[in-house]
């Protein structure tokens, strides 16, 4: 009985392994394979959480560097409470933004300070304006950038650190920048981080690696704000299921005792 059970489970595991092997298809199979270095993230693994300091610092980088071109349309100011900011701090952060609201009773649009319930105010009025201001290239919304790219966190970090000198024979198009990790190596975005781009409120040294790690942690949170809750619920669910399934197995053995 147990032998048959284990052989069944083994067979299922082998089948699952075969499937997952069949599925492990690199996304950019056609062009050149670009190896993306892995980084040790605070949010990796089944118990990983977003480092709160990194979230606050990463938000500072986003606000001071990225936000001049990239929107964050799916994140609201109220979501920042997750970083450990209290209600008043969130209100203050939201109020720094100017929101165009309306129409009012006179039929006019008007400006007002942001509220915690507002979503992050986008840098451009629309996509066309965004393109016009960026030489025709559209700076994508960053709300989901980490889950919308294969191996997203490592990819975005590599990209931010990947502005190196092009190989001598590399033909560069007008207005493009060389990046070691971008597909095709020509990216419209100019090198965004140099190190010492901001002064961190918590005094952490602002090396380019530190800045990249912080802003990617922030963007990973923006992509999957539910991750910590999800993993916590997952641990509870699995513990329950393991015990419950064990009990079901014992019951099954008892009921079947007189059959075998």
């Amino acid at each position, binding site marked *: 009985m147990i032998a048959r059970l284990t052989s069944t489970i083994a067979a299922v595991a082998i089948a699952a392994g075969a499937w997952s092997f069949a599925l492990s298809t690199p996304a950019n199979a056609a062009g050149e394979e670009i190896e993306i270095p892995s980084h040790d993230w605070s949010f990796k693994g089944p118990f990983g959480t977003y480092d709160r300091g990194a979230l606050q610092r990463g938000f500072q980088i986003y606000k001071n560097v990225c936000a001049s071109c990239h929107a964050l349309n*799916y994140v609201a100011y109220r979501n920042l409470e997750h970083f450990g900011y209290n209600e008043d701090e969130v209100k203050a952060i939201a109020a720094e933004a100017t929101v165009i609201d309306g129409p009012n009773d006179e039929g006019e649009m008007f400006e007002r300070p942001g509220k915690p319930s507002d979503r992050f105010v986008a840098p451009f009025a629309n996509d066309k304006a965004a393109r016009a201001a960026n030489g025709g290239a559209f700076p994508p919304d960053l709300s989901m950038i980490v889950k919308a790219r294969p191996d997203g966190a490592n990819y975005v970090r590599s990209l931010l650190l990947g502005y190196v000198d092009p190989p001598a024979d590399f033909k560069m198009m007008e207005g493009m920048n060389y990046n070691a990790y971008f597909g095709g190596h020509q990216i419209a975005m100019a090198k965004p981080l140099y190190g010492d781009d901001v002064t961190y409120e918590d005094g952490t040294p602002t090396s380019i690696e530190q800045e990249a790690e912080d802003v990617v942690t922030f963007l990973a949170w923006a992509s999957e704000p*539910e991750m910590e809750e999800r*993993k916590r*619920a*997952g641990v509870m669910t699995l513990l329950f299921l393991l015990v419950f399934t064990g009990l079901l197995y014992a019951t099954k053995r008892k009921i079947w005792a007189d059959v075998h």
Partner: protein
Amino acid sequence: MAANFSNPVVRWIDHRLPIFTFLHHEAHEYPTPKNLSYWWNFGSLAGIALVIMIVTGITLAMHYTPHVDYAFSSVERIMRDVNFGWLIRYIHMNGASFFFIVVYIHIFRGLYYGSYKAPREILWMLGVVIMLLMMATAFMGYVLPWGQMSFWGATVITNLFSAIPLIGDPIVTWLWGGFSVDNPTLNRFFSLHFLLPFVIVGVVILHIVALHRFGSNNPLGIDVKGQKDTIPFHPYYTIKDAFGLGVFLIFFAAFVFFAPNYMGHPDNYIPANPLSTPAHIVPEWYFLPFYAILRAIPDKLGGVLFMFGSIAVLFVLPWLDRSPVRSGQFRPIFKIFFWILLVDVVFLTWLGGKPAEGTYVILARFATAYYFIHFLVVLPALSIFETPKPLPKSISEPVLGAGGGFAGATAAPREKV
């Protein structure tokens, strides 16, 4: 036959509407072969997966907006702003994959143990219908989040119909409700994605009716000879299915909570953009073997025909494999070819995820050819040339060992009912 219910209310209702007698008959005392292995768990698991999909799907539909301008945002709002929306969506998203995993194992179990053979041909064919309906449902469901893969997957697959001679293009226009995949397409896909699961429920009921006509096949593939070969469904198989469900949920929860996007494609978190084609348009993993067959054939119409043919061949399987022996356990050569077929299908799955170029296409052609050879040449030939091993006289004989010393034990369960 009519069960003796002690509860007077149940008795009163049952006298007028014999629903309790029916359930007692079909889900309680229903005689089931006593030697079913854990491979027989996957039927009930598939049923449970269907229920999980319908419950989460209806909940998602309460928050989803089927419009090209809002669909993507509404899904992201479900993930971020609806209470436990992320959980409901991830269950639904991964549930589709797990539904297919369970059903594919269920199908391969049927293939190995000859569950498609007389008198279970219609049972098998209804199963193939369910699989087709599942594929249609899953395909349309994948379009709803309106990400890049949603849009381009829909474009590629609906375009297949343009391969039909003469009326192909009008049919595609009719399917789209316009001249490209657009809002009318999304709307009708949503409507059909909501409808089809209930059609599946209907066919599942027929599948169970056909199953209960002759009862389950079993690992030995021989007919039940009498009461000593069977045990009542409840409590024996209810508890065994419950335990199997527990194991299933452990795997399922591991994905939902810890790798929810592992089986999805990152491009589907980019909003649909008709002006920008992804470098590689790949369907969900469960379509990859069929996608590989489609692309293996150099001609568009030919590819479509072979792809649908790979499923159509399953419909006539009961008449291709004429061997009177059901179970692969007693078919030494069939057994080898069964495993080769399994490897072939896994290989096709892998190829389906690769770009259609160079060696991949050549390999896909061989794998496709082998798939059809298995069903159209190997199985009919084996029915003639293979000498099966001798079959046991009855189910209880091998279970009890040659002596049959435990004869009393088999009678006991019936008395307890």
